[in-house]
């Protein structure tokens, strides 16, 4: 079968069409909403933030997030949350989280977990 000439120039076709139909194409943020995406890898684990995507509504966000973020890897559940629902501290004010005085009383230094686990398993070393 000899190769025939065929026209396949989708880029040019789309640009031409867009220029014919619109004075100025709409910007992405004017039409689709931004969602934050969380993935729960296994049952019992916390959903983990993996990124964001645009979608027209929550249902579509789920459908599209499945391919944006779960083309590979494991998961048992997917969450999407409109980014507008998130309230966040400004990054410039990260100093509200700084500790400048001694707060070691809040650390769990005295609670030796590994020792207690070994004891429960009957493996505790005798001095």
């Amino acid at each position, binding site marked *: 079968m000899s190769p025939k000439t065929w026209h396949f120039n989708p880029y040019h076709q*789309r640009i031409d069409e867009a220029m014919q139909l619109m004075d100025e194409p709409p910007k992405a943020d004017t039409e689709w909403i931004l969602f934050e995406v969380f993935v729960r890898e296994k049952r019992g684990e916390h959903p983990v933030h993996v990124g964001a995507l645009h979608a027209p509504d929550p249902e*579509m966000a789920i459908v*599209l997030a499945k391919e944006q973020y779960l083309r590979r890897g494991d998961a048992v559940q997917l969450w999407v949350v409109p980014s507008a629902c998130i309230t966040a501290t400004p990054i410039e004010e990260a100093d509200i989280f700084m500790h400048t005085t001694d707060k070691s009383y809040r650390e769990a230094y005295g609670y030796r977990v590994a020792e207690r686990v070994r004891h429960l398993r009957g493996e505790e070393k005798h001095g």
Partner: protein
Amino acid sequence: MGELTGDSKAALIEYLYMLGDDELLLGHRASEWTGIGPILEADIALSSIAQDEMGHAEVLYGLLEALGEGTPDELAFNRDLPHWRNAIFSELPRGDWGFTVVRHYLHDVAEHIRWQALANSSYEPLAQVARKLLVEEKYHLVHSQTWVRKLGNATEESHRRMQAALDRAFPYALGLFEPTELEAVRVEAGIAPAESELQQRWLDDVVPFLQQSGLTVPVEQAATGWRPTVEPVYGGRQGTHTEYMEQLLDAMQFVYRLEPGAKW
């Protein structure tokens, strides 16, 4: 089942080509959207689905290889047009986004019904493949259903495009269930159910859904269920294809045929 006899082996082989060719061509048409999808997320989702469909074709061609037909690469890239057994439905150009999602929806439902039935095929390798592919197709159906439901009713333009897409796709979709001479052998041997049975289940599924999505379907109510009021477009299952298929094969097979069997 016992040993595959000449007739039932030929019937099985024909069937595997039918299913595999539909998957490969639909995957190929979907892949034509890569880079030019209406929006990034939709582009990525459909490209991923295209990869899935091509992977499904590869699995089905693998069954053909085990039956002595050739490697999946040879079947995909070195086979001439009259040997293809896809429905003409699968070779049509991708059209606009509406046509693409309507076509995917109609095919995804057909596949769901088919794989469910084939999970009980008397040919065990096919039954195993059916059970595996059924799992992946579930998401494909969620994806295409969501698009059809949302675009069917959204705006005047989306409704108009979706109705035009359905009007064009529906007669060709009926071609997915085109009867062939060897069908009776398949049904007798328990390899696959009758196409007319699958078509009826398919109509009972897609008609209410499309109507709820705001679209008019060319069907009427009959005692046995929904009945199409348009003629089906047949021919693909007999190896009769259109100039769209010639263009598609030219594009898809061009690189392989420069040097068949080259190692990449």
